[in-house]
């Protein structure tokens, strides 16, 4: 019987990288087809394929780690490096949008009235819903830390409660932000103010939704006894991502909502 003489994980051949790549092809081409020929079929097909790929790929990772025991300490170390590198790449993604914001707001052109906020823009009061949103995300940072400690201490019920509370706070943020978007006195088409505001906060909101989904998967896994007090990297990765989302919001709040108002 063949046994490996190392602690690393040689994965089984998998079709998901291929289906994921095709999904990306279909989504991007579909976007172009939608713009030019007004048909959304290709883009929707791509999105469905992407969702199927993500579900099956991550289902397989759970099987390999939790059910087959392949996530040994060296393997887990690699997963940690991977998550940190991914979050770092996302930091650079947001850095670009902050660069765009500061480029336009530090030296406002004559077309804007030579001032920031530009002439004619009614900004949102940073001490109303945006401040509430800040409190909501900061609180969710506390509850996710509570969840982590509960998992480490083997407190099953508390872990479930605090994780559920974190997700609820995430949904509350999304709901409040959606209301703000609906009620805002300016749109994405309102010059560079509108562009920088909605693109930066919009991508942030998308990341809040992604983070909430990640935490929701962790909640399901916690309910199904997947996590042990010593080994729960999936949860740690979700918590890191969540803290990252929180920090991005703080920068958005200080720069765009407060300084930029």
């Amino acid at each position, binding site marked *: 019987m063949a046994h490996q003489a190392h602690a690393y994980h040689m994965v089984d051949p998998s*079709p998901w990288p291929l289906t994921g790549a095709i999904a990306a092809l279909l989504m991007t081409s579909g976007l172009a087809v939608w713009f030019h020929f007004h048909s959304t079929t290709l883009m929707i097909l791509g999105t*469905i394929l992407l969702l*199927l790929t993500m579900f*099956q790929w991550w289902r397989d990772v759970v*099987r390999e780690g939790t059910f087959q025991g392949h996530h040994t300490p060296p393997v887990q170390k690699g997963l940690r490096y991977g998550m940190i590198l991914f979050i770092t790449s996302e930091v650079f993604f947001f850095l670009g949008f902050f660069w765009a914001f500061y480029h336009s707001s530090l030296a406002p052109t004559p077309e804007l009235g030579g001032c920031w906020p530009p002439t004619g823009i009614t900004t949102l009061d940073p001490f109303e819903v945006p401040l509430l949103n800040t409190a909501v995300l900061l609180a969710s940072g506390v509850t996710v830390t509570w969840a982590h400690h509960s998992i480490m201490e083997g407190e099953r019920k508390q872990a479930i409660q605090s994780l559920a509370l974190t997700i609820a706070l995430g949904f509350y943020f999304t709901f409040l932000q959606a209301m703000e978007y609906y009620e805002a006195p300016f749109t994405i088409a309102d010059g560079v103010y509108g562009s920088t505001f909605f693109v930066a906060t919009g991508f942030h909101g998308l990341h809040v939704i992604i983070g909430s989904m990640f935490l929701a998967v962790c909640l399901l896994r916690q309910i199904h006894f997947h996590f042990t007090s010593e080994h729960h990297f999936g949860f740690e990765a979700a918590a890191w991502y969540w803290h990252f989302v929180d920090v991005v919001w703080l920068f958005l709040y200080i720069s765009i909502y407060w300084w930029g108002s």
Partner: protein
Amino acid sequence: MNRHIFEIQKVALRSFSSSVRRQLDNKVPQKQKLFQVKNDGIPIHLKGGTADALLYRTTMALTILGTGYVVYELVKAAFPKK
């Protein structure tokens, strides 16, 4: 008479609470046994059984159809009709 009612209530409660408990039992050891069947040559994405195969076939069918469709749309877009 009251004892009867009390006993029936106890039985009803017992079967309800045990079915709830059955749903939340730790099934990880069973899953570990299922996925650690060695030397069957089945890759992880199919090792869960029939549902895996169905989902895989659906995904692959959409992939192949989608590839064909995108090539068709791109060729169509490359040769615009006057």
